[in-house]
């Protein structure tokens, strides 16, 4: 058996497509943390000290893991505009105090905010901010409050997580979040309108995607810098969210999604960041395109976090190019048994771990109502079957 590595060293080797001491394990625990620790979702979003205390408590209940999600959606949500699809200035996000059945998870109420792509490309965010369909929270918050959450609060938030990383010796899952522009357009136009646009005004959709690249990459890198990229382990990772609209055919993926995705990945990596692509849905039909993700880039900078994709096939196609991450099903975590989770993880490890470049995790994220023993079974499976 190899010498036992730190969590960060173990993850680094996986990113570099090498075998570590054992397979890294990193369930994406997010809303399950406040739920298990007994704090409200509102506290999770507004009180970093409470969130971090809850994280420590929940990690004990869930068996740990090699990194931790610092919930950068908080920064996105409290910031001014258009940050990774989560801002409250334009988008109608609703945060409840309680979990179901009394409350709910934060939810986006979709509205068509962009009516004219040219107007947005010409005037920037003004048409979004002043859209009659907008959330317009900016008009209910004081300028002082907005400025505080845009410029001061991120530093307070980052300092709290820096202390966590130093004390717990557990790296962050990410330092900043970015959304693919098609995802942003899904939020700003609605999926039905976006589908229509892709077929009826394809060049406008592509131009709008291009327009969003600079803003979205810059904001994500800014957050990662504030979170301590280069100093705080894991803060150098940009969490590049989602796979665009669900159900893209290979033609739409190759023509509308992929060129912008690759452009953003290249920007992040050439500026010194690593990219964790958190791409939902079943991407099996697109693996032949995705295998070019690392073209022209140094090794060890990319990770692909898959939800419904066939992991065995992903390993075959991508194994010598990109680290893959995933994918214990959500339904199994909520309704299955530890034995079922154990068997699923064992199979994943057998199929994906040989040669390195695999991190055992959840699909998308751990549902808040998962059985804690099922989440522990993921971590235990890495200890049981994951030693190289």
């Amino acid at each position, binding site marked *: 058996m190899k010498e036992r590595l730190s969590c960060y060293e173990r993850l680094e080797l996986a990113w570099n497509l090498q075998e570590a001491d054992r397979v890294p394990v990193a369930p994406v625990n997010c809303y399950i943390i406040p739920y298990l620790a007994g704090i409200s979702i509102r506290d999770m979003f507004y009180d970093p000290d409470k969130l971090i205390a809850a994280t420590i408590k929940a990690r004990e209940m869930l068996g740990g893991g090699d990194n931790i999600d610092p919930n950068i959606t908080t920064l996105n949500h409290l910031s001014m505009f258009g940050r990774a699809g989560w801002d409250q200035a334009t988008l109608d996000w609703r945060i409840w105090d309680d979990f179901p059945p009394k409350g709910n998870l934060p939810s986006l109420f979709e509205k068509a905010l962009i009516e004219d792509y040219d107007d947005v490309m010409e005037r920037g965010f003004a048409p979004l901010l002043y859209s009659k369909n907008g959330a317009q929270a900016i008009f209910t918050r004081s300028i002082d409050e907005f400025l505080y959450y845009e410029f001061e609060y991120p530093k307070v938030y980052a300092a709290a997580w820096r202390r966590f990383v130093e004390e717990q010796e557990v790296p962050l899952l990410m330092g900043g979040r970015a959304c693919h522009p098609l995802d942003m357009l899904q939020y700003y136009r609605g999926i039905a309108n976006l589908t229509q646009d892709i077929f009826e005004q394809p060049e406008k959709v592509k131009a709008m995607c291009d327009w969003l690249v600079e803003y979205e990459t810059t904001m994500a890198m800014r957050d990662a810098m504030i979170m301590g990229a280069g100093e705080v382990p894991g803060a150098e990772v940009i969490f590049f969210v989602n796979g665009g609209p669900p*159900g893209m055919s290979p033609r739409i993926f190759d023509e509308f999604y992929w060129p912008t995705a690759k452009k953003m990945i290249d920007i992040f990596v050439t500026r010194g960041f690593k990219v964790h692509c958190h791409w939902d849905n079943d991407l099996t039909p697109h693996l032949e395109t995705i295998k070019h993700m690392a073209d022209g880039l140094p090794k060890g900078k990319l990770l692909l976090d898959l939800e419904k994709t066939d992991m065995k096939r992903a390993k075959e196609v991508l194994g010598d190019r990109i680290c893959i991450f995933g994918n214990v099903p959500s339904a199994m975590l909520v309704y299955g048994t530890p034995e079922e989770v154990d068997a699923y993880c064992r199979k994943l490890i057998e199929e994906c771990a040989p040669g390195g470049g695999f991190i055992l995790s959840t699909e998308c994220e751990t549902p808040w109502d998962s059985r804690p023993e099922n989440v522990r079974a993921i971590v235990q499976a890495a200890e049981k079957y994951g030693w190289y």
Partner: protein
Amino acid sequence: MGKLSDALAVLDKPAVLAAVQEGIEAGTDPLQLVEEARLGLEAVGREFDKGNYFLMELLRAAQIFKDAVALLTPKIKERYGSAASRGTVVIGTVAGDVHDLGKNIVRDLLQCNGFEVIDLGVDVPAARFVEAIRQHRPKVVGMSALLSAAVTQVGRTVEAIEEAGLRDQVRLIVGGGIVGEVKRNMLRVDHATTNANEGISVILDWFGREQA
């Protein structure tokens, strides 16, 4: 398949609308034109099942179909008074869940297939489903559920329908990301799926069988 259905099958909206216009001008029965468009929609569904089309193509086909029907509706009303419905389906996303993409796709596809759809929206309490069954007398009730917690809500809704004594009057179908992956006996519904096209086929089958 004719010109209209062929155009819809390849998602060519201008050609579909031109074919409809041509048909109207030639005095073709508007219901025949609707039927022809529906054949095109079925062809899209078959391509989806074969893996040649994906969800966005399915959504696009429904959009084109609806645009075609919008041109034909005045003609149908002129000739027949009102369009005949294949039957009524009540649909909604269960309590605690506000996702509507899947529900809206199924709603649109049902409408394209000639059903009257009562859309209760999102975050629908069990009592509202019960009330809608009493009011609209549907043959089928569709529940949409994406979140894991929504599975419990599906159970509560089924329970409420049972308690109201309405369970034997309706078929229950549930669709969405999570529900297709849990064990069927947890849901106590007649069908569960993650696939919109499959859901439509099942509902068509139910109506077909009952009409036969």
